[in-house]
């Protein structure tokens, strides 16, 4: 099983990126508790986007076309 990143990820609590979204008083966990919008905001804050294999293929194709 992949391990959860610990100390290094605490940096996000003071990240500049977070200034662009409203963080609920419960912090990042509060964002997850906010539902789909909170999840997307949380991912945005962390610069993450989850893509499946077919989407990745599509991205590659797009890059290839460019």
């Amino acid at each position, binding site marked *: 099983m992949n391990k*959860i990143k610990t100390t290094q990820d605490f940096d996000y609590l003071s990240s500049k990126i977070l200034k662009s979204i409203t963080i609920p008083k419960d912090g990042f966990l509060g964002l997850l*508790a906010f539902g789909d919008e909170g999840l997307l905001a949380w991912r945005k804050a962390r610069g993450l986007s989850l893509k499946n294999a077919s989407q990745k293929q599509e991205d590659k194709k797009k890059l290839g076309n460019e």
Partner: protein
Amino acid sequence: MSKRIAKKLLLIGWDSADWKIINPLLDAGKMPALEKLINNGVIGNLATLDPPLSPVLWTSIATGKRADKHGILGFVEPNPEIGGIRPINVTSRTCKAIWNILHQNGMKSNVIGWWPSHPAEPINGVMVSNYFQKIDNVAAEKWLMPNGTIHPESRRNEFFKLRVHLTELTGDIIHPFVPNLHLIDQEKDTRIGSIAQLVAQTASLHAAATRAMKTTEWDFTAVYFDAIDHICHGFMKYTPPQVPRVSNEDFDNYKDVVEGIYLFHDMMLERYLQLVDDDTIVMLISDHGFNSEHMRLNEIPHCNTAPAFEHSPFGIFCISGPGIQHDERVYGATLLDIAPTILTCFGIPVGEDMDGKVLLSIFEEATSIKTIPSWEDIEGECGMHNESERINTSDSAEALQQLVDLGYIEDPGEDKNLAAEKAIRENRFYLAKIKAIRKNHEESLADFQQLYEEDKTDIRFNLELIKLYVHFKKFKEARDVMSNLQTIKDSSIIEIEMLDGIILFNEGKYNKAYNIFNALSAKNLRQPGIHLQLAMIYIQMDEFKKAIESLHNELKIDENNTLAHYHLGLALLNSGSFKEASNSFLDCIGLNYSFPAAHYYLGVALAKMDSQKDAIGALSVFLSLAPSNLNARILLSNLLKNTEPEMAKIFTQQINDMKKGEVIIVSGLPRSGTSMMMQILDAAGLDILTDKIRNADDNNPKGYFEFEPVKSLARDSSWLDQADGKAVKVIAQLLKFLPDGYKYKVIFMKRDVNEVIISQQKMLGKDSKVFPLALSETFKKELNRIENWFQIHPNFEVVYTDYSNLILKPDVEICKICDFLQIDYSNKQRMIGTVDSTLYRTKL
């Protein structure tokens, strides 16, 4: 359709949520969303069902039916395609769920994560199956979503992106659950990973639910979370107070995990309350509770579904919204009541084949219940799968592995056939249990005999078989199985001792049973059941004060023990404490409404308190649960004869139709004149039940008029049918063993207790100058107890006859007897002639 109470209804399921854990968090202000819901609504306990397995229970919640009717019997089922087993899926459900019924009524539903709900049903709305959030051991990029997870399929990609993989989570997410996270070496300690997995899965489901609620027009949304249950199974042992088997390090690291998951759920609840409007009813439930504090198990037994041993029998119920009472409590709710209650909220008829009831007391206004025979008979599209629908079996492998990891099922291993056989046996086990619950004990016994023969090493088969043998009074067979149980490695010594005591108790060997339970209670084990069994013995021995003390001890261990509340009520009732008794019966009913005897004795207690209207109400409820009972009708007839004579007449007619017979009983202490009374009745021309085995002697020169089988009444009352319409002598101490179903007219002989004792001393050839004072006190108490006992047994009609009055004024006493027995005076002189004053030899 009847009146629709709710425009919309949101049903939230928190598997395993328990008020005992929630209440301190509420008190500390840590669950503000739930507090809001509670303050604006109705709360209560929700009694769970047997088998206590989540897929079975959540299907009962969704259908209002027990497992034998809905077809979901466990965690896994045989895989018809490739052999072996697979997690149970929704195609095995054999009846309609709430959302299918709503579908047929033109309403729209969202169903998120319900267990089981894969493959997603084609309902009018959105269904996200319980495979949606399951994380396999692959990187996030390779994490696929099984076919059939989302309905409609057109929204698959949208929901796909709402799944959270555990590797996405960062330390700050886990930190609230494990404040010492940065100190834990995750290479050695994998518990952080399991927390992360559950948080990720919960976040996935929550994101799907909120998305569905915001993007659809819906009437009904149901969302189910299992994280509280899984977290409790993994981490309840670390919660305060610290137990000896947990190290200081583990306690410090993981003591906050259970609290953390509850707070996370409250944060999600807050979001749901934001997403609903004033027209929405919100219902929050759990399928069972979870044992905490001193109720935690030291060790989980080694058997299938063993984690269920950690569950407690009451889940939570909380409802708030339009038409719902404020700041109230509901009593006696069970999981089976959820579906009928939701249908009533929507003004939709309840299926008469549903096993639950509508929780009418939650509504602000009086609500009528409409019913139809069965929703299964209503044809047309309902959003269920076709018969031919089958799941892609390879998709279920990961879900299966998670069940193995959580300890709910054994690792099926390589042998697919063996795994399938075991799954079938598990299903048979639960069906056999349900048969016993439905009082079909004969079939249940046959099933368990077969299961036991197939696998004598399964502790559960042993225990259930013993219970059934005891039910059928097959004590030798019960002991044979117990001998086998003793040979099983994981069987509990204490449990075996308790079983031994229970068998002895049921054999009527109260002293031996007492020795066992008294010794166990002295060990201060805090094991549930010991004080209860001890109290039951005390009640049989008429030691009501001691019974009350033991029952208070039992309730200190588990305040939700329905049997303890019930027996406390019985002990108090027999002690003449009617108000306290009624409170105990109410406590019992509050926990388990479907406990007929508690309603009956509540009625008896209320009748004794002259609360006639309430007594009639309690007895009426009892008769709705146990329609064939005679005693309740007798009591109701007595209660109604002055205020509603016509109704009383109806009950009297029913009593005459139903009673097995009417028996005249002559009773009293030995040597109180019972034989003389039998002679009087003989002279009156009544039929006397006697075998004349005991001949007349100097002590009773005119004969004893006894019937030998009466002596073994405690064990065998089958001879009672011979006594119908006749008079039989039964000594006072044996009266309580006379079976229900008969009406008894009792002539109870009273004689000065000291005269009785001296007469007995003479009869036994003892020195009559030595007077046993203690015995005198015992007899007085005994007589007092019997008088109390008559008061709470309405099928016993009693007349007291004083022995010395009978000798001195036979005319008066015999007229009283004739009136009582409703016989004419034509034989009065013959009856008087049997009274021989010369036999009154012991006078004080």
